[in-house]
């Protein structure tokens, strides 16, 4: 009788403990996509030591990656798209609010020096977006995408520039989004890459008469006249290739870009650039969601974002470039019929495929913010 009582007393907590154990064990069996959440970069250790200093973004927070460790910089807010001034002493970044975004000049520790734009309004559709800041090589102008002019439902980005030391009232528009007559609403022009104060690359989203949307890298060589955009821009890539996210090498002779052929996944390509036309592209990587190629300070490697693992977090990758002789852009231009689309030549595969190296793990960096690297 006593034994039975002891057994009962022992069995009840044992059953409770085992039942709870099964419950908790099932909880641990959840798939990685449900369990895994991005970590703060500052609590992680990069798997690869990147040369130089890089600024990246995670969920609206700015981080500096230097000497193999991350540190958070700047005040709280929804920050994105940090870019360096040519002398590498200051940053320009985007601070986004619910209805608008502004460009800010920051020091390298993220302290605000000056607010460059004032895009907020109490009237909803009088607010504006400013994204993709890039400083011209002479440091005098900052190019950016700005949603003006706009009307009613039609909101498209155009490429604007303003003096870095001036005010937004001095800003000038350089492009008219979408050349197709009467209809726009493709999202417009983004990602300017300033070559000089009057010359820049950008990405145009355009439509054809059958309303298919195309993505092309364009070159605009003339400044705006009396505040109106020059009209002699030309596409450097073929519409069918859907190339975007241009990144010019430090010496200005090569252009890295992502081309998707209108599909979800794409190719990371590098093409020679002589300041006017693109040569045949080398395919470095293919079949992935590659984003924001960025040149290393010495121009011998690229960094980019790509998702990894079941969680699909975008991580930073490093890609040393193989030393191969590339055809000159000029040679390719003469082979291009009509000269309108210089890189219509099919991309040539690289003889020795470079091997990418994963830099971060489990941090999910913002793939729409190009890293700034010096």
């Amino acid at each position: 009788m006593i034994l039975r009582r002891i057994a009962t007393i022992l069995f009840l907590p044992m059953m409770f403990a085992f039942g709870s154990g099964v419950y908790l064990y099932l909880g641990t069996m959840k798939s990685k996509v449900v369990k895994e959440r991005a970590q703060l970069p500052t609590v992680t250790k990069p798997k690869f030591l990147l040369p130089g200093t890089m600024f990246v973004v995670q969920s609206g927070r700015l981080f500096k990656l230097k000497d193999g460790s991350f540190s958070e910089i700047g005040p709280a807010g929804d920050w994105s798209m940090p870019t360096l001034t040519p002398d590498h002493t200051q940053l320009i970044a985007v601070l986004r609010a619910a209805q608008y975004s502004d460009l800010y000049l920051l020091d390298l520790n993220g302290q605000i020096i000056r607010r460059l734009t004032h895009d907020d309004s109490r009237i909803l559709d009088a607010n504006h977006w400013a994204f993709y800041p890039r400083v011209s090589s002479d440091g005098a102008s900052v190019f950016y995408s700005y949603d003006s002019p706009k009307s009613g439902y039609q909101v498209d980005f155009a490429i604007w520039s303003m003096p870095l030391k001036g005010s937004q009232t001095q800003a000038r528009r350089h492009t008219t989004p979408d050349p197709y007559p009467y209809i726009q609403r493709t999202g417009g022009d983004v990602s300017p890459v300033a070559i000089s104060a009057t010359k820049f690359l950008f990405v145009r989203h355009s439509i054809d008469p059958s309303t298919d949307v195309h993505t092309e890298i364009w070159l605009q060589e003339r400044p705006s006249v009396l505040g109106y955009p020059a009209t002699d821009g030309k596409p450097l890539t073929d519409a069918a290739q859907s190339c975007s996210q241009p990144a010019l090498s430090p010496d200005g002779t090569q252009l890295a870009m992502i081309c998707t052929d209108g599909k979800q996944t794409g190719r990371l390509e590098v093409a020679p650039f002589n300041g006017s036309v693109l040569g045949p592209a080398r395919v470095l990587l293919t079949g992935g969601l590659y984003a924001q190629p960025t040149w290393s300070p010495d121009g011998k490697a690229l960094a980019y974002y790509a998702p990894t693992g079941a969680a699909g977090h975008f991580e930073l990758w490093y890609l040393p470039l193989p030393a191969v002789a590339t055809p000159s852009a000029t040679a390719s231009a003469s082979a291009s019929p009509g000269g309108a689309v210089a890189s219509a030549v099919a991309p040539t595969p690289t003889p020795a495929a470079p091997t990418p190296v994963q830099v971060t793990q489990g941090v999910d960096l913002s793939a729409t913010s190009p890293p700034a690297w010096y």
Partner: protein
Amino acid sequence: MAGQALARRRRASRLHPVRLVALTLFCLLLSGFAGAAAYFFPVVVAGVGQTGQVVVVPPSNSPGVKATPTPVAAPGAPFTVLLLGSDDDGKNQSPLTQSMILVRVDPSSKHVTMESIPRDLWVPLSTGGSGKIDGAYAIGGPAAAIATVERNFHVHVDEYAWVGLVGLIKLIDLLGGVDVNVTNPVLDDFYPNDINVKFLYGYTRVAVLPGPQHLDGTNALRYVRSRHDDVNGDFGRSARQQQVLLAIKAKASTLNAADLPDIVSALKGNFKTSMGLDRVRSLLSLANGFDLANVQQIVLYVPLYTSYGNGPAYGGQSVLVPHWQQILAVTRANFP
């Protein structure tokens, strides 16, 4: 005698080691079952409340269309699901279906076909009269939506699944977001500001930037719902909806049974389907085997499949007029 009987009773009352082991195992089994039952209890509740919804669709006069419901298709046989998505934000007592996608799944060939039906398509409704096709669900629920699609598109719908906006946000957040390559900027100055707010009729601004990115639930919803600044209007939105659906599929293919309680919790009150739990589970496992290359996407664009119409003939509304010859040809070819 009395002493012997007492000794026998004492021996009997003592726990034999074999009985003790058996009893222990039984208790562990019982408690383990109870632990598992507690873990999956929300799934069972949802299974009763949200899956296996009985829908009786009025018989169709369209050629080749079988009555719904039909006996469950044989394992491995192709079947068609009507996916419905609604603004269940409280503006309408009966929500419209702002997203209608016919999905044909062929488990044997691992091929999926998706055909988006424009919400503004002007069609004869199964409930009587003509109207925009998104009103069928509001008037007669899933049965009317299915019957309207079956009669007009001459297809047989085996199952339906309905999801609300909040459910979509929660599901994508549960999956830790989805990876999408945004082809062009999606800008909208008149995006409805109706989630988690008291005043449901306000607007907000939206800017989804181009390029590959990891979208959380809120931003994914903005991406699939915005339409004002898309040159292709609702069609562009339909293509984006299919894109996000495939991104969800890519993530969902790694889910397992232990995730079901979280999924159920995320979709609580925002999901209904005629499919039983077993079919939902088999669909999840099927998702593992499907390659995105085997997914065919159809959007009924202007001018081939539809044209714009407005005026008194359409109740003063802006609608899409179907070109049935072309629509039925493409539907028949892909939904045999």
